[in-house]
């Protein structure tokens, strides 16, 4: 059985809500998936340069990035030669296999969160402006709360107009408390307060919002380092996770974002937001490969429960199929 078939079967058979969400989010993808792939391969009698060129286009249009695409194509060519594959149909499985391989290369990294069994777990959220940090926190708060955990939010975006209120609305919606200070106050001081509050209220999870900042703003990145330092000082081992929120529509700049935020705050995972649009955020492959940062969650909408754990296989499936569909037009 081919890899694609296996993958497809795995996905269609499982009926859990996670898969349903993924399917909903990537709905444009799934429709007639196999026929679309067949269309691509049907147009080619043999696996030749042209075939690879079109494949290259498909992947670049998913924002995978030129270097990663070239590497993939090279490996594919080798694999095709090695297995002596003539039929384009047979290449299908290899493509997906290789994509998952690229994602899984390097260290084994789990996409699970580092949650403390006993005591407080602090999660810091970082990212550029407008990627969906606050929304992601709201969704994650909901997830933890429904798991029976005591959650607290820290309104660390003291800069953007209305940011504190935005987090508070999410807090009210989910039913968790938000620790805040006035707009314009020192975000590190907010964290200090929030940690004290979390300790005294015996919270399990503290989710820390920060202001969006472009990674080339040195002073703002330093401010972020300070926020992290304060958290480290108050609780040894914290923050237990630093999650970089990336907008799936972002192109190659996402790699620079990941690199710079990693240098400043030692990012431990990525939340790929807004994956319910037509963008696929293929750059996470390069980020995983070059910086060894795993994707931990994907955002698939604006509702509270629209945050799902990342699954490389399902992601690749969506990534590829969607692009094939586009290439067909």
């Amino acid at each position, binding site marked *: 059985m081919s890899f694609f078939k296996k993958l497809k079967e795995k996905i269609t058979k499982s009926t859990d809500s996670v898969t349903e969400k993924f399917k909903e989010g990537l709905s*444009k993808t799934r429709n007639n998936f196999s026929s679309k792939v067949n269309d691509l391969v049907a147009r080619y009698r043999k696996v030749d340069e042209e075939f690879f060129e079109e494949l290259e*286009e498909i992947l*670049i*249009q*998913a*924002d995978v*990035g*030129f270097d990663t695409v070239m590497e993939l194509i090279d490996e594919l060519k080798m694999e095709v030669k090695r297995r002596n594959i003539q039929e384009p149909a047979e290449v299908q499985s290899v493509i997906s296999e290789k994509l998952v391989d690229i994602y899984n290369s390097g260290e084994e990294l789990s996409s699970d969160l580092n949650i403390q069994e006993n005591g407080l777990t602090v999660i810091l959220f970082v990212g*550029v*402006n*407008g*990627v*969906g940090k*606050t929304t992601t926190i*709201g969704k994650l708060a909901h997830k933890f709360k429904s798991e029976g955990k005591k959650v607290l939010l820290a309104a660390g975006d003291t*800069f*953007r*107009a*209305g*940011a*504190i*209120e*935005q987090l*508070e*609305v*999410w807090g009210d*919606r989910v039913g968790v408390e938000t620790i805040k200070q006035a*707009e314009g106050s020192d975000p590190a001081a907010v964290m200090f307060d929030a940690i004290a509050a979390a300790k005294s209220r015996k919270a399990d999870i503290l989710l820390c919002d920060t202001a969006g900042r*472009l*990674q*080339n*703003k*040195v*002073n703002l990145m330093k401010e972020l380092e300070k926020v992290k330092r304060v958290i480290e000082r108050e609780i040894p081992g914290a923050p237990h996770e630093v999650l970089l929120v990336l*907008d799936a*529509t*972002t*192109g*190659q*700049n*996402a*790699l*620079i974002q990941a*690199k710079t935020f990693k240098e400043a705050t030692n990012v431990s995972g990525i939340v790929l937001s*807004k994956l*319910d*649009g*037509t*963008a*696929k955020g293929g*750059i996470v492959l390069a980020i995983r490969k*070059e910086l060894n940062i795993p994707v931990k969650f994907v955002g698939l909408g*604006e509702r509270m429960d629209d945050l799902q754990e990342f699954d490389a296989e399902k992601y690749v499936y969506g990534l590829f199929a969607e692009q094939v569909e586009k290439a067909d037009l």
Partner: protein
Amino acid sequence: MAFEGLADRLQSTIQKIRGKGKVSEADVKEMMREVRLALLEADVNFKVVKDFVKKVSERAVGQEVLKSLTPGQQIIKIVNEELTLLMGGEQSKIAVSNRPPTVIMMVGLQGAGKTTTTGKLANLLRKKYNRKPLLVAGDIYRPAAIKQLETLGKQLSMPVFSLGDQVSPVEIARQAIAKAKEDHHDYVLIDTAGRLHVDEALMNELKDIKELTKPDEIFLVVDAMTGQDAVNVAQSFNEQLGITGVVLTKLDGDTRGGAALSIRAVTDKPIKFVGLGEKMDAIEPFHPERMASRILGMGDVLTLIEKAQSNIDEEKAKELEQKMRTASFTLDDFLEQLGQVRKLGPLDELLKMMPGAGKIKGLNNIQIDEKQISHVEAIIRSMTKEEKLRPELMNSSRKRRIAKGSGRTVAEVNRLLKQFEDMKKMMKQMTGMQQKAKKKGGFKFPFNPF
């Protein structure tokens, strides 16, 4: 990991064909591969790149190489020109309705920066055109979006029309226009909720607002960091709403901003403004030739020149230049110069605009701390007149006094003096170089990275 600019990319190719009189087909082919890569890395859409490269190749083959240029420079020149052309007219104006108020609708994906841009545009309309805009809080979905616009309104001392988040945006727009007429506002800026271009229900809502308000402008707000998907977003918003222009945001980041080209290519609608920061005055008209240079990674020379022109006192500049030439440059002049440069804006931004700045060793990673410059100023100000004129007078007791006076350390004083000496040396060399270049007929400024 920062992506190489086209100029850097073409470097090796150019070595091979230096000195040729004509650009051959093979040369073009080789160089176009690099052009293609540079554009893809800048996030220009794949199909747009394809068409573009084809067009440029056709134009480039067989071209006479201008005397002052190398074949590589010639190609860059053509690419730059075509790119600029493709991005269309510059400095687009905002429409004015002959039956006020003029209505502007702001639309786009989530997180593109619509609300911030709404505030900036209102500020611009008031400051530059002396208009009286009314801001309309039409994003009833995102938590605290209304509050965000209200806060911006307060900062700008501008009225914000809101009916809370329980009234439909269409109704809000309707009442807002009535209110604007009543209060004699000549512009109405409607902020709307971010939405996906594939969200049918929400896109219909925008159509309804459009139908009702008959806006004079519909601005699509797009994040400059957007990747390949920019074409889908722009095309979809344009087809469904008929946008009149684009505002490109977050261009103060380090993205190349290839999305600009993609959007322009698929919608044929002008990019009217760019957002360059979080402050309410961080908005500028779009300049196609600057964007072209940026996408190609060639530095934004024109912006730099323009900034310098508007901010540097010409008399003083001449005086300084004279001093540099004669090497009678003192610490006082240095202080003066720092002040002049600082007027241009944040220094790291200036550096980014310099062509080839990325190639100077050590300079591409340099981070200029504005605070440090203040420290330098403090140190110089703590010197006596005599010391400023003749730094060689400096001894340890003087240095200690200066350090105390400026609140810095002696080591910092030493470092500054050393830097100043180095600078003087460099100036001597530079004036030498300039004179040589003049003899050769001068170099073309924007194309000198080779």
